[in-house]
């Protein structure tokens, strides 16, 4: 089971690695993604710069206005400016995504490294836990975590992190096995280096090497999952401005005001897409160093 599955997992993570020739410069899509991500970060840090209108400012006289020059994304049932709400929703969405991926990497890293460095018995035991984490659909695992921890933005982030940690644990364990049986670790041993030096200067840096692109790809995935759970009412609650909560809020008026559905979702999609493109590009660059 595990040997095959590690390769499968690697296949998922590496899916984009070999696309096109290696060491291609960043194309238009990568620059566009960076630009969009810069805007997203700006919206998260200084939302008022982009959207001066108060996102909680109620004006019943201008409810359900379609997009116009005054209200770019239209207005909602209480006449709040949808553009402003989407922009102000960036911060919680992004923070939850970052906390999730940090949790995922921490849990995955601890399990994966324990398996690699802990010797045969530990590896066997940890491998079973990783198997279970991986056998469970991530979102369902996140749901179970929420059932245990209760629904709040912080527990949501932790739940999503735990839900996606199985994949990271597997990748780190697989990478660890590849590195520790690699020719260059054998070469370092043959040179007579001390085990401690080999661990810190050769094994650990090479395990960590593919993590930056995974981190980038992972934030996108976590944002999608977390907003999805918020949409189901398990994280941030309306009227709080958060992308998932905005979508949940819009559900009652889907037939009436399409713009309330389209724009918050588009923000999630565009952010996740940009992170994916950037992550893929980083992966290809790392891979280029590997295979060129």
């Amino acid at each position, binding site marked *: 089971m595990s040997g095959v599955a590690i390769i499968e997992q690697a296949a998922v993570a590496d899916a984009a690695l070999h696309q096109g020739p290696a060491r291609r410069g960043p194309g238009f899509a990568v620059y566009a993604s960076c630009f969009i991500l810069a805007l997203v970060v700006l919206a998260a840090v200084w939302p008022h710069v982009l959207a001066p209108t108060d996102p909680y400012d109620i004006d019943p006289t201008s409810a359900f206005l379609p997009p116009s020059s005054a209200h770019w994304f239209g207005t909602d049932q209480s006449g709040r400016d949808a553009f402003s709400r989407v922009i102000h929703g960036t911060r919680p969405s992004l923070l939850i995504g970052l906390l999730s991926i940090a949790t995922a990497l921490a849990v995955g890293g601890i399990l994966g490294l324990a398996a690699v460095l802990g010797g045969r018995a530990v590896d066997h035991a940890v491998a079973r836990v990783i198997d279970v984490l991986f056998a469970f659909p991530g979102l369902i695992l996140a749901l179970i975590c929420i059932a245990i921890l209760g629904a709040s933005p912080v527990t949501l982030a932790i739940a999503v992190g735990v839900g996606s940690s199985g994949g990271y644990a597997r990748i780190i364990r697989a990478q660890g096995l590849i590195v520790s049986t*690699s020719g260059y670790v054998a*070469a370092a041993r043959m040179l*007579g280096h001390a085990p401690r030096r080999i661990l810190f200067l*050769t094994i650990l840096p090479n395990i960590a090497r593919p993590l930056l692109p995974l981190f980038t790809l992972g934030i996108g995935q976590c944002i999608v999952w977390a907003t999805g759970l918020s949409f189901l009412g398990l994280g941030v609650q309306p009227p709080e401005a958060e992308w998932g909560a905005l979508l949940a809020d819009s559900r009652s008026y889907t037939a009436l005001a399409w713009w309330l559905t389209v724009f918050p979702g588009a923000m999630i999609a565009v952010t996740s897409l940009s992170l994916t493109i950037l992550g893929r590009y980083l992966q290809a660059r790392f891979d280029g160093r590997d295979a060129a």
Partner: protein
Amino acid sequence: MSGADTLAHVENLTVRFQRPHPRTVLRDISFTLQAGRILAIVGESGSGKSVTGRSLLGLAGAGAVVTAQRLEIVGQPVLGLSQRAWRRLRGKEIGLVLQDAMVSLDPLRPVAAEIGEVLAVHDIGSRGTRPARVIEALTEAGVPRPEERARQRSGELSGGLRQRALVAAAIAARPRILIADEPTTALDPTVQRQILDLLRTMAERGDAVLLITHDMGVVSAVADDVLVLKDGHVIEQGPAQDILRTPRHAYTRSLLAAVPGHRSGPSRIAETSDETPALAVSGLTKHYPRPDGAPVAVVQDISFTLRQGRTLGLVGESGAGKSTVGRMLLGMTEPDAGAVRLLGDPWSGIAEPLRRSRRAAIQMIYQDPLSSFDPRLTVRDILLDALHAAGLRDKPAALRRAGELLAQVGLPERIIPQSPRILSGGQRQRVAIARAIATNPRVLICDEPVSALDVITQAQVLELLDSLQKRLNLSMVFISHDLGVIGQVSDDIMVLRDGQVVEHGAADAIITAPKHPYTRQLFEAALHLPKAA
């Protein structure tokens, strides 16, 4: 040259590629393929030899522009042929045999399906009669028990059977022309010999064979005519005997000289001394468990003494246990029985921390140096890391020493900030050698160090190892499947088969008068050049 016997006519063939950047890979090549004759196209990688063969199939590659004054196959002009018309020729009039059938046969389909495909595509025979023809083709290709083999997939066959199955697929539709592109590269010598004999048989039956190779030994074994190609240009062309005996061009001479075992080998100084041996090995044995748990001896009772400054050649076909011996000599694998002594002191069976402090004295050179370099490191980091292991911790001094090491292995200093990834195969091997000698070792274990290199690079690396050995008084264990290489570098030779010593003695004695039949068989399979006139 009667026209009836000319199966292919090529005049001024030129191939250009538009992508990724416009370049001409083949310029004005002319030759004919005659029934009953084997034409060998010889060149290093990138010489355009493969493109030549593929142009005859209309498969020169995406974005290739093929022009020629005349390009005829079995009397039919093929320039500007439609894909549909090309497909009628491929397989039926011309067969193609590629290197390494492991990847040249679809690994997911049984051999019979692969061979039958060419019949089905050309509507040869019927559903009922094709299986019989498949078996027949396998028989013609010299596959024993063809019915059983036909049901297997390429991964289940041995290298030799696989290559024969590939030949069977190429000849199933009885094409008159066979193109064999490096058909024996990476095969053990005995298997190589069998495949070459098979090509000879095809030619004697009246087919024309175009043999593409980098190996002058292969040329001398079977070719009637030779065309030497370099950078897309013809260097020399003519009957094989003339070119092998009296090469006119310097490049041809360098190709001939690069064939291992046919250079004037290094003069071996036999200075006997009573100093401690570099390695003393007695009764070395190693078992590995089979999948069902039963232990199998991969190395059995091997003993030898390696004197300082000498080279022991370990030769054998794949699976003979050579690399396991190498790992035990390096102290990376503990023997189950027997002992290794390094420079007089125990080396096997001691605690790793103790061994670690002496590892600098014995270093290794690999077949694939790239996998032995930390992918994050540049040449400079690699050398500094090795010097750190050797105790040189002062950075300016270490950098100076790194520069010296590069000079010693014949590398320019400008490559020091580069990653080994962007270096050529020969340069990478030189970096690996520089790393190995950085610790001032007494012993070098070389595991197939030149098998992955072009012939000319191979000769250069062997020369480098030889000069380093003399200068640094290194003792070497040289592991290889290639008798030519072993014969050239070794003072003593040990022949291994299935983990056991078949023959062991002075190199001269074994080469001139092998005693054991297996050794003789290995020598007979090895390819020899005719003596230069």
